[in-house]
C-alpha cells in the first residue's frame, strides 16, 4: 500500500505539471457566479448593516448575469469538452444550468422578505445559496466521479447550514441535524460505491468506467458498486425508503429553503443520478433497471399514501414531492429499450415543469403564511375571501401537480408515460399502470387543499381584509405561473425540442 502510494508520488514528481487547456467560454457561467458570490461577500464586509437590503437584489442579479453566458453558449450550440471529457458543456447541461439559475433566482425572490423580517443572518444566507447553486452548475457538466462528488458536497454543505437557519427554533435545529446526518451517511455509502468502481476500472471518468465494465456483466462487485451509488443518490432525491429525512427537514427549515431543497437540490440529485446511471451504467441495465423500478414504484406509492394523511401543507408538499420523485425515476427504469436520450429528456422535461409548479406552490404557501402564521391546511379555509388571487394561483399549481391540463404538469406526466409505454415491455407498462393509479390518488389530496380554500368558510375571528403580498413574492409567483402555464400549452413543443438535444 505504502509502496504503491510512493510509486504514484514518484510518478507525479517526474511529470511536470502542465495546465490543461481551458475553454473559458464553456465555464463562463460558473465563473460569473463565483465572481458574483465573492462580490456579495465583499460588499457585505464593506457596507455591513447599511448594505443589507441590497444583498438579495445583488444575488438575484448575479444569477441572471450568469444566465447570459448560458444563453450565448446555447446559441453557439457546440458541445464543449474540458479536462479530457471530465467536464462537458452541451445543450443538456445548459438546459439544466438555466433551470438551476432561474430556480435560484425565484428562491432569492421568495427569501427576500422572509429573511429581512425574521431577524436572521441574511447576507450569509445569500452567500450560501450562491455557493449551492454554483455546485449545481458544476453538477450539470460533471462527467467524472470526482467532479460529481465535489459538486454534490458543494450543494449539500451550505444546505445543511441553511436548514438550521432559524437557530432559536428546535424544529429547525432538528431539520438541519437530521438532514446533515442523513446526507453524510448517504455520501459515505455513495463514496464506497464510487471507490469500488474506481477499483474495478482504474478511472473516474464515467465514459471510461462504462466501457471498462461493459463486458464484465454482473459480477457481485459491480452489482454492489452500482447499487451503492444509486442508494447514495436515492437519499438526495428522497426516494423511498431513503426519504425519512425529508418531511422533518422540510417542515423545520425556513420555507424558502424548503422550496430550495424540494426543487433545486432535488433536481441536482436527479442530474447526478441520471449522469451516473445513463453514462456509466449504460451497459448494465440488468442491475440498474430493476433496482430503479423498485425505487420508483415504492417512492410514488408510499409518498402518495402518506401524503393523504398530512394536515400540514408543507409536510403534504414534502410527501407529494417524494411521490413526484417516483414519477421522475420511472423513465430511468426503462432506459435500455428506449435509449438513454429518451429517458433523459423525459426526466429533464419533468424537472423543468416540476420546478416551476412546486416553487409556485411554495411561494403561495409563504404568501399565505404572512396571514395565517401556520402551515395547517385548516388555516386555509375561506382563503377565497381574503386572498382570491392567491387561491386561484394555488389552484393552478396544485392542478398542475396533479397533472391536469392545460397546466404544465400534464405534459410532464405525459412524457413519462410515453417513455414508459413506447417499448411495450412488461416493466414499462406495469410501472405506467402504477403511476396512473397514483395520479388519481394524488388528485385526492390536492383537491382536499382546494376544498378548504374555496368551499369552506373561514373560522370565526379570521382577519378578512385583503392580503397584501410583497413585490418580490409577486415576482416569484408571476415567473412560476407563466412557466407553469406556457409549458402545458404553447411552449410544450419547444420545451420538448429543447430537451431533445441530449446527445450523449
Amino acid at each position, binding site marked *: 500500500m505504502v509502496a504503491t502510494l510512493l510509486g504514484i508520488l514518484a510518478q507525479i514528481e517526474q511529470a511536470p505539471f502542465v495546465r490543461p487547456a481551458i475553454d473559458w467560454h464553456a465555464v463562463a457561467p460558473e465563473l460569473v457566479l463565483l465572481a458574483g458570490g465573492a462580490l456579495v461577500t465583499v460588499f457585505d464586509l464593506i457596507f455591513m448593516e447599511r448594505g443589507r437590503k441590497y444583498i438579495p437584489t445583488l444575488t438575484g442579479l448575479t444569477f441572471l448575469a450568469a444566465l447570459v453566458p448560458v444563453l450565448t453558449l446555447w446559441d453557439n450550440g457546440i458541445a464543449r469538452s474540458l479536462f479530457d471529457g471530465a467536464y462537458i458543456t452541451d445543450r443538456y447541461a445548459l438546459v439544466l444550468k438555466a433551470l438551476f439559475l432561474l430556480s435560484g433566482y425565484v428562491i432569492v425572490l421568495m427569501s427576500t422578505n422572509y429573511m429581512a423580517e425574521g431577524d436572521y443572518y441574511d447576507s450569509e444566507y445569500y452567500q450560501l445559496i450562491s455557493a449551492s447553486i454554483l455546485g449545481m452548475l458544476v453538477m450539470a457538466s460533471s462527467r467524472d466521479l470526482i467532479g460529481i462528488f465535489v459538486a454534490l458536497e458543494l450543494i449539500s454543505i451550505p444546505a445543511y447550514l441553511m436548514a438550521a437557519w432559524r437557530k432559536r427554533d428546535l424544529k429547525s435545529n432538528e431539520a438541519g441535524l437530521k438532514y446533515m446526518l442523513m446526507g453524510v451517511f448517504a455520501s459515505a455509502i455513495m463514496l464506497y460505491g464510487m471507490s469500488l468502481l474506481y477499483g474495478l476500472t482504474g478511472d473516474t471518468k464515467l465514459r471510461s468506467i462504462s466501457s471498462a465494465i461493459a463486458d464484465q456483466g454482473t459480477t457481485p462487485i459491480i452489482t454492489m458498486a452500482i447499487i451503492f451509488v444509486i442508494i447514495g443518490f436515492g437519499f438526495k432525491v428522497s426516494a423511498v425508503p431513503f426519504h425519512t429525512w425529508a418531511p422533518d427537514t422540510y417542515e423545520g427549515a425556513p420555507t424558502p429553503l424548503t422550496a430550495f431543497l424540494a426543487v433545486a437540490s432535488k433536481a441536482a440529485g436527479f442530474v447526478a443520478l441520471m449522469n451516473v446511471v445513463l453514462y456509466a451504467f449504460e451497459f448494465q441495465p440488468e442491475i440498474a433497471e430493476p433496482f430503479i423500478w423498485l425505487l420508483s414504484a415504492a417512492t410514488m406509492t408510499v409518498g402518495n399514501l402518506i401524503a393523504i394523511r398530512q394536515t400540514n401543507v408543507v409536510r403534504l408538499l414534502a410527501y407529494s414531492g417524494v411521490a413526484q420523485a417516483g414519477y421522475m425515476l420511472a423513465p430511468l427504469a426503462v432506459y435500455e429499450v428506449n435509449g438513454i436520450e429518451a429517458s433523459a429528456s423525459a426526466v429533464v422535461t419533468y424537472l423543468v415543469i416540476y420546478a416551476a409548479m412546486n416553487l409556485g406552490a411554495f411561494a403561495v404557501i409563504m404568501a399565505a403564511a404572512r396571514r395565517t402564521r401556520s402551515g395547517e391546511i385548516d388555516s386555509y379555509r375561506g382563503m*377565497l*375571501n381574503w386572498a*382570491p*388571487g392567491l387561491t*386561484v394561483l394555488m*389552484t393552478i399549481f396544485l*392542478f398542475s401537480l396533479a397533472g*391536469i*391540463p*392545460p397546466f404544465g404538469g*400534464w*405534459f410532464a406526466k*405525459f412524457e413519462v*408515460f*410515453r417513455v414508459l*409505454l*413506447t417499448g*411495450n415491455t412488461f416493466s414499462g407498462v406495469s410501472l405506467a399502470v402504477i403511476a*396512473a393509479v397514483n*395520479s*388519481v390518488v394524488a*388528485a*385526492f389530496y390536492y*383537491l382536499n387543499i382546494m*376544498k378548504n380554500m*374555496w*368551499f369552506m368558510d373561514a373560522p370565526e375571528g379570521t382577519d378578512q381584509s385583503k392580503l397584501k403580498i410583497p413585490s418580490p413574492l409577486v415576482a416569484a409567483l408571476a415567473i412560476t405561473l407563466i412557466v407553469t402555464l406556457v409549458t*402545458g*400549452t*404553447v411552449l*410544450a*413543443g419547444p420545451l*420538448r*425540442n429543447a430537451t*431533445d438535444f441530449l446527445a450523449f
Partner: protein
Amino acid sequence: MTEFFNDWGITALVFLPLVGALLMMLVPAKDEELHKTIALGTTVITGVLGGFMLWDFWGMGKANWSTLQYVQDRTWIDVINARYFVGIDGISAPLIALTLLVVPLVLIYSWNHIPNPGNAKMFLILILVLHTGMLGSFVAQDLVLFFVFFEVVLLPMYFMIGVWGGEQRLYAAIKFFLFTLFGSALMLVSFLALYWVTGGTTFSIPGLADQVAAGDIALGTQVAIFGGMFLGFGIKVPMFPFHTWLPDAHTQAPTQGSVILAAVLLKLGTYGFVRIAIPILPEAAVEWAPWIGLLAVIGIIYGALGCLAQTDMKRLIAFSSVAHMGYVMLGIATLTPFGINAAIFGMVAHGLITGMLFFIAGSVKDRFHTLEIKRLGGLLVQAPKMGWILGFCTMASLGLPGLAGFWGEFPAILAAYSPAEGISTTLFRVYMVIAALGTVLAAGYLLWLLQRTAFGTPSEEFADDPEIVDMHASEWIAWLPLLVLIVFFGFLPGIIFDLTDGTVVDRLGSLVAEGSP
C-alpha cells in the same frame, strides 16, 4: 373577411373569452357592474364573431359542409406529432352555435342573480374559462388538443358547484370531479393506445380514421380502445349506470351552472362518440352498438322512473336529462346517418329545452326559496307568465310535435327500426318499443310536475309572500331567444338536419357504404 376567418377565425373565437377573463383579473372585485359588463361584452363579441363565421359557413353551401372549414393546422408538440388542428364542419357547427347562444344568455341572467356567497368577479371569470373550454372541445381535430380542452371544462364547473352550490355542494363537487377524472384518464389511455397501434405518427382525428381504415388492427384491440373512450364519453353523457353524479351535480349547482351543464357540457360526451369514437373505430362501434343501445334504453326507462320518484323540482329535471340523453345515445347506437342526425338534433333540442327548464327552476327557487314540489303550487296564479313558460317547456320536453323536442326523440326512435348492417335488427326493434314506451312515461312525469307546481292554488305559506313576483326583465331577455328557437326548430328542423347530414354520412364512411342507402 373570409381571409381573416381562415387564418385566425377559430383561434379568435376560442380564446376571446379567455382574453375577457384576463381583463377581468385586472379589475378590482368591488366593481361588480364593470365585471358583468366585461363578461357579457366578451361573450357577445364572441357570439357575434361566431355568428358571422357560421353565417359564412352556411353560405358555403351543402357541398362544402362536410369538409372541415377554417382549418388551422399548426405545429404544437412536434415530438409526439400533436398539432394545433382546429376546424368546423357540419357536426360541430350546431353545437358551437348552441354554446355561443347559451353562455351570453346565462350571463344576462346573472346580471341580478349572482348566487351566494357573491364574488361576481370569480364567478364570471369561471364562466368565461368554461366558454373557452367548451368552444375548444367542439373545434379541436387533434386528440391531444381535444383532451386538453375537455379537461379545461372540468375545473370551472367543479368550483362553480363547490363554491356557489347548495347545501350538499362539497359532496356533489367532488363526486362530479372524480367521476369525470376517472373517465377522462381512461379516455387518455385509449387515445395513447390508438396512437401507438397506428404507428405513432399522428393524433389528428381524420388522420387516425384513415390509418385505422387502411391498417389491419385486430378487432379485439379496436374493441378495447373503444371501451376506454366509451367510459370517458359515457360518464360525461351520462349513460346509465354512470349517471349518478348528474342528479347531485345538477341539484347542487347554481342555476347558471345547471344551465351550462345541461345545455352544453353533457353534449361533450355524445359529441365525443359522434366525432371521435365512431368515425375512428367503426368496426368496434358495431361490436359495441348493442350494449350502447341497451344502456341507452335502460337510461330512458330508469331516468323516467327516477323522475316519477323525485320530490325536488331540480332533481326531477336532472333525471329527465338522463332519459333524454338516452334517446340521443339510442340514435347514436344505430350507427346510421339517420340516427346520428337525430342524435345531433336531440343534443341541440335538449340543450335549449332543458337549459330553459333549469332557468325556470332557478327563478322559482329565487322566489320560493325551495324546490320541494309538494310545497309549491299555483304558480299560474302567482306568476302567470312564468307558469305558462313552464307549461310550454314541459310540452317541448315531452316531445310535442311542432316544438324542437319532438325532432330529437321521434327520429331517434324511428332510426332504431333499422340499425346499420352488422347490428341485430330484432334487438334494436325491441329497443325501439321500449324507447317509445319511455315517451309515455315522459309525458307522465312532466305533466305531473306541471300539475303539481303550476296548477291549483298557492299553498298557505307562500300565498301572500311579496317576494313572489312575475318575470323580471333580465329573465325575459335571457329566456326569449331560447323560447323562440324551440318553436323555430320545431317548425323548421330541416335547417339542422341539412347542416349535419352530409358530414355525418361522410364521417361514418365504411358504415354507410356497407349498410342502408
